[in-house]
């Protein structure tokens, strides 16, 4: 199987992918983009959150063939070159990272929230991040980072 997709603004091609494999496998193992994390492989943890045609999804639940011809934005494409996105900067500044495994998914989910709703209330933040699990349970700092990024982005 051959699929052609656009990843982080660049056209990419994958050859000989197994028919049943996920977009997450393609990103990590075939395209060398390990930012999206592979944890639960059942859509429970959100660590593999990417944009597919502008919509945040779990890459582990997208069949690779379904991404053929589509646009994918991964955590690697969130920053503008060396300039961190305000969401990424806020995660660093607030110490919203413990082991860091859930961080890429949370960065994409928080990015998606703030793109749609630049000034969310706490309830909206919690709901938007409900599909992203942090097993270090550092949720307070994560909420704080989203508030800080929101303030920065709406300034």
């Amino acid at each position: 199987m051959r699929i052609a997709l656009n990843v982080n603004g660049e056209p990419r091609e994958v050859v000989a992918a197994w028919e049943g494999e996920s977009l997450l496998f393609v990103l990590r193992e075939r395209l060398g983009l390990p930012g999206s994390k592979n944890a639960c492989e059942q859509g429970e943890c959100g660590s593999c959150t990417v944009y597919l045609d502008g919509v945040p999804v779990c890459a582990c639940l997208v069949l690779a063939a379904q991404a053929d011809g589509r646009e994918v934005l991964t955590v690697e494409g969130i920053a503008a070159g060396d300039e961190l996105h305000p969401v990424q900067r806020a995660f660093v500044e607030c110490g919203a990272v413990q082991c860091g495994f859930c961080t890429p998914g949370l960065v994409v989910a928080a990015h998606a929230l703030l793109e749609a709703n630049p000034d969310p209330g706490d309830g909206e933040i919690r709901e938007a991040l409900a599909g992203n699990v942090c097993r270090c349970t550092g949720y307070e700092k994560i909420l704080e980072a989203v508030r800080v990024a929101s303030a920065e982005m709406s300034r």
Partner: protein
Amino acid sequence: MITVEATLTPTTLAEALEMRAAHPGSVPIAGGTDLMVELNFDRRRPERLLDLTRVPELAELGRDDGAVHLGAGVTYTGIVERLGAAAPALAIASRTVGSPQIRNRGTVGGNLGTASPAGDALPPLVASGASVEVASARGRRTVAAADFCVGPKRNVLDADELIVAVDVPAARGPQQFAKVGVRNAMVIAVCSFALAVDARSRRVTTAIGSAAPTVVSAPEAEAFLAGALDERDGWDRPARLGEAELARFGDLVAAAARPIDDVRGTVAYRRHALAVLARRALDWAWTDYARSWA
């Protein structure tokens, strides 16, 4: 390991139905929220996959003759955004599905295809009298949502058929959906309950999720409520229902369930929780009716 043959990627419904007929062993995939888990965990190796995400007919959402025509491939996010007024119970249930990422992919067609009694969309479809449009290269047929699932993970779909759409009668009164799980997000229902008040036909209809082999309604609870409302002219001069009536309704709903003990809950807990959910859902919906619909 069986090699999976090339994935079929139709771009029209007619093409999808031809492919389905030519490859009865193919497994349809839409949002992938159920099927990809089985592939990822090596639990299932279908000989072929049939990707339905490029079929525009399945993504249609329209309205005619007092019914919502909901394409099988419309996502839960789409339902939440667009059907809050026309199909409130379905919209409420859709909002409880998984997480934002899951709601962005999961579809009602997938819920019906998987046919789990815990599918969140199913009780609202049954309570609101929806019907399922099914098609094959041989033709089309319509099946009542209440008759579509015939057992856990079993439905009436033939090997060459696809679920095309669901027709949901537009709400003619308040509707509710409530579900019990260990947290608000990312849970498979321990049990759930949907209720639809029809102000025109003067009926209240019910459906119970995740507490029987399929989604079932609670006819005795419906009959009890109909009688109680008739007796005191409740439809024309509605007042809040009394505690005793609400409790009786809840008990009759719980009695209509046929739950099992499993990893998510026990028979006793499910019955207890259903009585509570049904009592609350009725109180919310009837209070709403008395205030805004009568």
